[in-house]
């Protein structure tokens, strides 16, 4: 007898209460965007969005014992851009566009936290709920790192200052059972989105005003089965490989040190620079 997973009886309880994207300046060098339920000033790693899921499982005890239940998460990189301006128009401007080739070639990425085994978002811990149900929990705190200043290559390497940035990603969080054969059984999923967007104003050479226009949105409530989106299917069929965090760090470096179309240094400031962005 094979294992039976009652996917239609799966229960996913999402806790997004108080979840909000916040911004923080670090060492006057980086702008950090992070999802939080109450930022303490130093903790960038605590979970903000959480989910507890259970599903009835039955079958031979030996096989059920070997069944792993946890979460797989796939991230879709939508957009990530940052814009810099000199103190005056003649000191130029810089645009960064991270989520395009050659810096980023694939927009669907397998997500993970703390170097998990494939395909897990985090390595599942064996747990049994009541009435033959198996349980798993999930938590995430997606972040963003943007440099506050860059040197303009076509304007004598003079420093340009961040005045606007945004990063948007969608996440497909999938309650999953991994059968002893290694085949993932996608039980249920939900979809959410984080858009970080900040405008920065500088006073006396310091980023003193941070205008936060970010948002967190639960796009799809828990739904049985795997996500149907066409661009996700290849990843869901073979959920393995380098994780989004590692790719993201490489994308950041490739964009900042790269050239067009990821990075463009301009002799003039962008017309979108507010009059009072640098005083």
């Amino acid at each position, binding site marked *: 007898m094979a294992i039976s997973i009652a996917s239609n009886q799966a229960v996913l309880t999402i806790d997004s209460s108080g979840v909000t994207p916040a911004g923080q300046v670090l060492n006057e060098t980086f702008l950090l965007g992070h999802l939080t339920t109450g930022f303490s000033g130093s903790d*960038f790693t605590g979970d903000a969005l959480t989910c507890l899921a259970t599903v009835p499982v039955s079958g031979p005890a030996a096989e059920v014992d070997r069944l792993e239940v946890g979460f797989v998460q796939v991230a879709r990189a939508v957009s990530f851009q940052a814009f810099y301006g000199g103190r005056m128009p003649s000191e130029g401007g810089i645009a960064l566009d991270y989520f395009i080739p050659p810096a980023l070639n694939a927009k669907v990425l397998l997500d993970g936290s703390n170097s998990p085994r494939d395909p897990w978002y985090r390595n599942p811990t064996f747990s049994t709920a009541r009435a033959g149900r198996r349980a798993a929990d999930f938590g995430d705190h997606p972040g963003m790192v943007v440099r506050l200043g860059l040197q303009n290559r076509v304007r004598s390497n003079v420093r340009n200052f961040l005045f606007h940035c945004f990063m948007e990603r969608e996440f497909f969080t999938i309650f999953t059972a991994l059968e002893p054969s290694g085949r993932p059984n996608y039980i249920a999923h939900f979809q959410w989105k984080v858009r970080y967007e900040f405008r920065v104003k500088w006073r006396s*050479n310091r980023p003193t005003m941070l205008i936060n226009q970010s948002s967190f949105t639960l796009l799809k409530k828990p739904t049985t089965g795997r996500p149907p989106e066409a661009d996700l299917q290849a990843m869901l069929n073979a959920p393995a490989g380098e994780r989004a965090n590692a790719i993201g760090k490489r994308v950041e470096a490739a964009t900042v040190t790269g050239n067009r179309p990821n990075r463009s240094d301009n002799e003039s400031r962008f017309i979108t620079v507010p009059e009072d962005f640098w005083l």
Partner: protein
Amino acid sequence: MPLRSRLFAGDRRLEACLVDDKAHLTPGTRGDFVSKVHTALFLVDGLNVDATDLRTQLYGPSTAAAVLAYKRKRHIVNPTYQRTEDDIVGKMTVASLDNEVALREAGPADFPLPPQNKSFV
């Protein structure tokens, strides 16, 4: 020898400043060439001038103060007629700024590493 930095080279007013006492930059002067001096002071020493001077391309009081700070740091004086630094951009000052800007232009950009404990994607 003409000015060699990308920032200054070819600017008639600054090229004149390099060779002609009458073309020295003094408080009250205004123009594109003053903006270039603002950029140079910021680039080599991080010296800021106030927003009014920046916006109006003016060699105003904050520009004069920044020039004086730059010259004091390097002890730029003409011993034939002065003992202490002044707040004017003359031949020696424009040459010094040009040299330092050229070195900056040739140098590598500074890219600090982002924090490692932060999720990025």
